[in-house]
């Protein structure tokens, strides 16, 4: 049940270079949050009419809401100045999350800050499996120990080879898929990251005949389905197409739904 809550910053911690974890007290919001849902943040210090910024829920603990963010522009740079006690207006939880009862072996594929919803998911899924984390370099690989502490096996790939194996994360992904295939197991893919990654994961899900849950990252305005800024062409099971709103009808869609 979405709410517009005045959260209090508890604190933030630097992760790798450019990435931060932000904890806020968000009573009424945090408790209701599901993995894959997001919040819409009114960043303090921007002009009064600056648009809100959407962030996946990285986790919750009681009434504590956890976000993980990368400083990429005006808003996220400004978020960096938040100190404990600062009030932040947050709408959430928004959107539909990942399904929590997978039919197959869960296989998580994260790109950059895409780990955020997957880390939350990892703690809520009934069975543990493998998490693949990709990024340009070591700095873009986050939450590894968090996944491990939850009992997940983590494999890392970086494009520059500064951490894990060198190359795209789709390489270990294909290996994992082959392994599961040999073992006779059906995988179930969960992914969040840049469009290129999501597309690659989706194609593999379709090829493997398994479900692939993709969390889309689209620029948003309202976050609640009112403005039609974040639309995505989608396909129904009967093959007919429709235009969905990533904020309200997503951000998580099954690979087959998406018309890229």
């Amino acid at each position, binding site marked *: 049940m*979405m709410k517009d809550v005045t959260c209090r910053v508890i604190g933030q911690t630097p992760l790798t270079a450019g990435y931060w974890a932000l904890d806020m007290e968000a009573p009424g919001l945090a408790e209701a949050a599901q993995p894959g849902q997001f919040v819409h943040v009114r960043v303090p210090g921007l002009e009064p*009419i600056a648009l809100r910024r959407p962030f996946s829920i990285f986790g919750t603990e009681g009434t504590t809401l956890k976000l993980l963010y990368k400083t990429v522009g005006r808003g996220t740079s400004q978020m960096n100045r938040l100190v404990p006690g600062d009030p932040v207006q947050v709408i959430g939880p928004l959107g539909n999350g990942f399904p929590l009862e997978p039919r197959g072996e869960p296989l998580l594929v994260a790109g950059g800050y895409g780990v955020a919803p997957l880390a939350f998911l990892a703690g809520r899924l009934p069975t543990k499996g493998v998490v693949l984390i990709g990024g340009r370099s070591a700095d873009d690989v986050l939450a590894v120990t968090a996944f491990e502490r939850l009992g997940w096996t983590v494999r890392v790939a970086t494009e520059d080879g500064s951490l894990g194996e060198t190359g795209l994360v789709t390489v270990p992904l294909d290996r994992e898929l082959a392994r599961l295939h040999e073992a006779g197991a059906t995988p179930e893919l969960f992914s969040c990251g840049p469009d290129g990654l999501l597309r690659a994961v989706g194609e593999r899900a379709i090829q493997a005949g398994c479900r692939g849950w993709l969390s889309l990252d689209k*620029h948003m305005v309202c976050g609640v389905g009112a*403005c039609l800024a974040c*639309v995505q062409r989608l396909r129904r099971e009967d093959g007919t197409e429709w235009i969905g709103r990533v904020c309200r009808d997503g951000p998580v869609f099954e690979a087959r739904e998406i018309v890229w």
Partner: protein
Amino acid sequence: MRVDLGGIRMKNPVTVASGTFGYGAEYAKLVDVTRLGAITVKGIRLQPWPGNPLPRHVEVPGGMVNAIGLQGPGVEGFARDYMPFLRTTGVPVIVNIWGTSEEEYAEVARRLSEVEGVSGLELNISCPNVKEGGNAFGTDPRAVASLVAAVRRATRLPLMPKLAPNVPDIKLFVRAAQEAGADALALINTLPAMVIDIETRRPVLANKVGGLSGPAIHPVAVKLVWEAAQVARVPLLAMGGIVGPEEAIEFLIAGASAVAVGTANFIDPTTSLRVLEGIEAYLRRHGMNAVAALTGSLL
């Protein structure tokens, strides 16, 4: 606080601007929409319309530029999927309509006249984001007159053309619209605008151009409302850059009978209610017992 907006009976002078509040339901969990004077919904035409490719918006100083392109479910889809909720609110529903020909506008109006719960029609003749229709109609007084007359013949619903701001003399349009049978006038729509990404050297919006909204356009809107009020014989619904009660009160003083909150909904969804409370407090503080006492009270 009652206002009669050309036959649309509003219990207070505050509505939301078309396209910024969906069909009411989207924001209903965050805002008590039953407190609004009216709910104005996203623009619709006869058939479903896909709108423009993405990106459809970009943030700019003092507001945003959008080119949604009037995506909508068409008249049938709207009546079927969205009216049931809207009827439960008990609040007048203003439907923003458009078309690519006079016939289409008229047909949309005719069909909506038969939909229970529709209280009035806002004629969008000023959208900068669609190739045909929209702004093309709104920037020629004769085209406005002819279009309004055509729609007038098709419906008895209160008819409120929404005027384009990018004209040298708004009065010509006010006169043309009211003489052709408009019951009220809405102004302003977004200002035609463009943003270029200097690294890619491409327009940021897929549609290339879009419409500027938000506080950046407020002083432009006040000037147009004030000018329109000088010749208007019908009530005016004013919008453009309202972020709090002050901007809304400026519009009322300039000559508006009611106001609509647009872009600000995205940042604070309760802006419309804050505006409402602020107008109430202002009227009390100034010993005025009706919104009408404020309308056009510029000294």
